[in-house]
C-alpha cells in the first residue's frame, strides 16, 4: 500500500493532548511460547491520550505484545500495569482490565450469529449490566460515529470487510474503554476499504483515546501517532516521534525495514 493517501481532513492536533497520567506500564517483561523467546525485556510506558503505532517485520512480536496488555497472552516475567491495576493470574484483575481495554482484531471477530446491534450491546448488557435500552442507545451512537447506523439490524455476514471492521471498532467503543488496542486492523481488508477504517481510527484518535496500534499504514502513523515503536526479534529496537522515526531512523534495521516498506 502506498503510505501517503490522505486519510483525514481534520487538523485536530490541539485536541490530541497527552496527559501525565500513566495508562499502561510494562516493566522488564518477557514471554516465551514453549522454548521460543518471543518478547525480550520489554519496557514501555504509555500515557493517557497517547497514540502509539507499533511496527516491525512479521514475527517480531508486535501482536503478542499488545495481546499481553489484555491478557489474551500470558507473560512469564516482568510486570504489566494497566490503569494502575497489575495483570496477574487474579481473574478479578483480568476482568477489570478487559472492561477498560478495547481490542480490534485483524479478522474483525464479530459474532456472526448476532446482528450488528446485538454485537455492540452484548458486552455492555452482560458485563457492564446496562439495561437493554440504554445499551442500544449507546450502541446506535457509536454506530453513527463509525458511520454505519443503517446496518444495525443486519448480520455481520452481510457486510463488507470495511464495514465489519468499523462495527468491530464500535463494538469495542460501546464498553467505554480507556484504552484501545488495534491488531493490524486493516491487513485483511481490500485496498478500497482501508481508508474508511483508517478514517474512523483517525477520528477516534482526535477524540483523545489512548491507542496502541499495530499497523503497517505509515501514512496513518505519520498523521496520528505521537510515538512509533519498531520491533524486531521480540525486542523494541527503536522508539521515537514519527517525524524523527521516518526521516531520521537511528537503527540499521529500522532503516532497512523502512526502505523496504516505503519502496513502492
Amino acid at each position, binding site marked *: 500500500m502506498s503510505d501517503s493517501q490522505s486519510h483525514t481532513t481534520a487538523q485536530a492536533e490541539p485536541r490530541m493532548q497527552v496527559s501525565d497520567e500513566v495508562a499502561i506500564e510494562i516493566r522488564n517483561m518477557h514471554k516465551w511460547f514453549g522454548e521460543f523467546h518471543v518478547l525480550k525485556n520489554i519496557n514501555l510506558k504509555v500515557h493517557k491520550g497517547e497514540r502509539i503505532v507499533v511496527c516491525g517485520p512479521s514475527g517480531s512480536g508486535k501482536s503478542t505484545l499488545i495481546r499481553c496488555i489484555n491478557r489474551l497472552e500470558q507473560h512469564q516475567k516482568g510486570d504489566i500495569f494497566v490503569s494502575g491495576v497489575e495483570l496477574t493470574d487474579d481473574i478479578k484483575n483480568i476482568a477489570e482490565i478487559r472492561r477498560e481495554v478495547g481490542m480490534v482484531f485483524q479478522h474483525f471477530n464479530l459474532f*456472526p450469529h448476532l446482528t450488528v446491534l446485538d454485537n455492540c450491546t452484548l458486552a455492555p448488557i452482560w458485563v457492564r449490566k446496562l439495561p437493554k435500552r440504554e445499551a442500544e442507545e449507546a450502541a446506535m451512537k457509536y454506530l453513527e460515529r463509525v458511520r454505519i447506523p443503517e446496518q444495525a439490524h443486519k448480520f*455481520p455476514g452481510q457486510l463488507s470487510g470495511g464495514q465489519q471492521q468499523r462495527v468491530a471498532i464500535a463494538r469495542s467503543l460501546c464498553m467505554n474503554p480507556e484504552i484501545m488496542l488495534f491488531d493490524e486492523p486493516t491487513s485483511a481488508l481490500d485496498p478500497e476499504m482501508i481508508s474508511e477504517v483508517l478514517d474512523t481510527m483517525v477520528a477516534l484518535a482526535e477524540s483523545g483515546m489512548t491507542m496502541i496500534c499495530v499497523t503497517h499504514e505509515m501514512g496513518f502513523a505519520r498523521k496520528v501517532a505521537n510515538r512509533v515503536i519498531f520491533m524486531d526479534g521480540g525486542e523494541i529496537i527503536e522508539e521515537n516521534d514519527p517525524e524523527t522515526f521516518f526521516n531520521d531512523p537511528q537503527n540499521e534495521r529500522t532503516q532497512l525495514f523502512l526502505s523496504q516498506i516505503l519502496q513502492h
Partner: protein
Amino acid sequence: MVMSESQVPQDDGSTYAPGQHPDLPPPPGTVGLIGWLRGNLFSGPINTVATLVTLVLLYLVIVPIANWAVVDSVVTGEDRRVCDLGRTSALIGENARAFDPEHYALDPGAEGLTARQAARVRVEQMAARSLFLGSPSLLGVFLDRYAQTEQAGLVPDSLLPVMEQVRPAELAPQLAEAVETDNVPAALEIYDELMPLAAWGDSYDGACWVVIKQRFTLFMVGFYDRDQLWRPLVAFLGLLIAVPPLLFAGMPQRPRALWFSAAYPFVAYWLLTGVELAHGPLRLLLGLLVLLAAVAPFAWSGLTARSRLLVFSYLAPVLAVALFFAFGPEPLVGFEQARIATEVTPQMAEVNSRLTVGQNIALPTGPVDQIFSGRLYLLGLALSPLWWMIFGALFLWGLRAVLRQVAGQAGEAEWRAARPAVVAAALLSAMILFAGNQISQDTLSLSVVGTDKWGGLLATMVTGLVGITASLPIGILLALGRRSRLPVVRALSVAFIETVRGVPLITILFMSSVMLPLFLPEGMNFDKFLRALIGVALFASAYMAEVVRGGLQAIPKGQYEAADALGLTYWKNMRLVVLPQALKIVIPGIVNTFIGLFKDTTLLGIIGILDLLQVAKSTNSDSNWIGFFQETYIFVGAIFFVFCFTMSRYSIYLEKKLETGHGRR
C-alpha cells in the same frame, strides 16, 4: 477492428451504449415448472431414462402397498372374523387358479422318463393333487367362517350379492362329490362358479387393521389403569401445548406460553404417576424458602425491584400453607395423627359426594380439630364453598391493595392505612386456606399408577422425551468438560464419555436393571423404569457430548478471543457466543442423536418394559391374533417414522431459520 464505443451490436441487431443494456427476461423454458423439469428430470438422455425407470419402480412399489394398506384393508368388526373371511375367499381363488389339470393328469410311472424327469413330474403331480383334494375342505372352512360372521352380524354388505349369485353352500357338496369321484372337469366348472367369491376375497385380502383397533389402548399406554386413561391423554394434550413455544421463536404470546412449558414436566409427572414431586423434605424446604424470600424485602433495603417483591411477600403465607399442608395424599406436618372414627351421617354424605351414608371414616383430630373435637370438620364440609369464598375475597382484596401500591397508584396515606389490613388479609387467608384444606385434604390427589403398568407409546415417548431433554444439556456440559483446562474435569469427562460410548446400550440397560440393585443396600430400591430412563439419557449424553465437541472445535479461536477481550466470563462466553454458533453447526448431528435415541427406546423391551415394539410382539404371540405381524409391525414402524421424520424436518427448518448470511467471522 475497433468497435465504436457506443455501438455494441446484439443478436437481434439492435445496439446499446456500454452500461445501458436493459434487463431482459430469461429465455423461455429455463424458468418455472417446465424449466425445473427440463433442468432436473430430463436434462439429458441418461437422466431422462433414470427418471422414467424411477417412475416405473415407484409405481410398482406404491400401488401394491396402497392396495394392501388402504384399498383392500379391513377395519370392520371386533375380532379377526371378517379378515379371515376375506383371506379364505381369496385363498379359494388362488388355489383354483394355481390348480393345473394337466399336472394332475401326469403319470410319474410312465415309460420313457428319465429319473430326473420322473422326479419333477411327481412333484408337479403331488402339488396339483393336494390343491385338488384340499379344495372341498377349504370351501368348508369358508362356509364355517361365513356362518360365524353371519351369526355375529358382521358380514360385509358387498359379500351378500356374491353369496346370492354363487351359492357356495350348494356348491360344496357338488365339489366334494366331484373330488371324490376324481371328476376333474366337473371340479373345474365349480371352480369357475366360485370365481366371483374369490374376486370379492381379493378385495378383502389387505391389511387387517382390526387388530390395531382392538389393541389400540395397549399400543398407546400399555397396562396403564383403564379407568385413569384421561391422565395420559391430558398429559399428551399438554405436551402439544408445551412444545411449540420451545420450538418456534416467532410464536405469538411466546413468553407467557414458556411458563407453561417450564411447568409442564412437573405437571406431567404428577399426572402420569400420581405422585407429587414436591413431597416430603423437598416440600418443607420449598416452604421455608418461600418464607425466607418473603422476609427479604423487609430485611434488605438495598434489594433491586424491592417494591415488586412486595407482591411475593404478600403471597408467601398462602404459598407456604399450600406447600406445607395442601395438595398431598397426606399432609406433610402430621396434624392428622390422631383420628376419631365416625360413621358418615346423611348430612355429611349430602355435602360430600364421595361419602356414603353409614360408611366408617376416620376424622382428623389435629390441633385445630381437637379444639372443636372434629366439629370443625363437619362445619367445614357444610361450609366448604363458603371457605373458599371468604378466602378468595380476603385474598383478592389484599392483593389489589398491594398491586395498587406497587403500581404507584396508591398514595402514601392510603397505603399506610391499608397496611395492617393487608397483613391481616395475608395471614388470615393463609389460615382459612389451612382450615379449609384440612377438609379437602385429598380432593386434589390422584391415584398412584406404578411405572410397571406404563407401556406402549406412553413408555416410548416418556423415555424418548426425557432422554432428549436430558441428553442435550448433559452432553454440552460433558463436551465443555472435555475441552476444559482443568485436568480433573477433563479426565472425568473423557472417562465417562469413552466408557459409556464403549459399551452397547443393552449392557447399560442390563446394568441398570439387574446389576444396580445388587450394589444397593438392602431395602433400597428405585423404580426400574426410572433406572432405564437414566441409562438411556446418560448413553445419549455421551454421544451428544462428542457431537457438541465437534461444533466447539469448528468455532474459530478469534471468537473466543473477541469475547474474552470484551470482558465476558467463561460461562457467558460459552452461553452467548460460542455455544449458539457451535450448536447451530451441529444441528444435523444433534438431531441424528435424538432420532437414534428415540429408536433405541425399543431396547427397553429387553429389560421387561412393554414399549411400543413389545406391544406389537406380544400381540403377535396372542393366540387370538396370530398371523397379523405385518399389520402390527407396520403400525409401530409408522409411528416411529412420524416422530423421527418430524424431528428431521424440524432440524431443517431450524437450520434455515438460523442462517445469518454467508461468511463466518
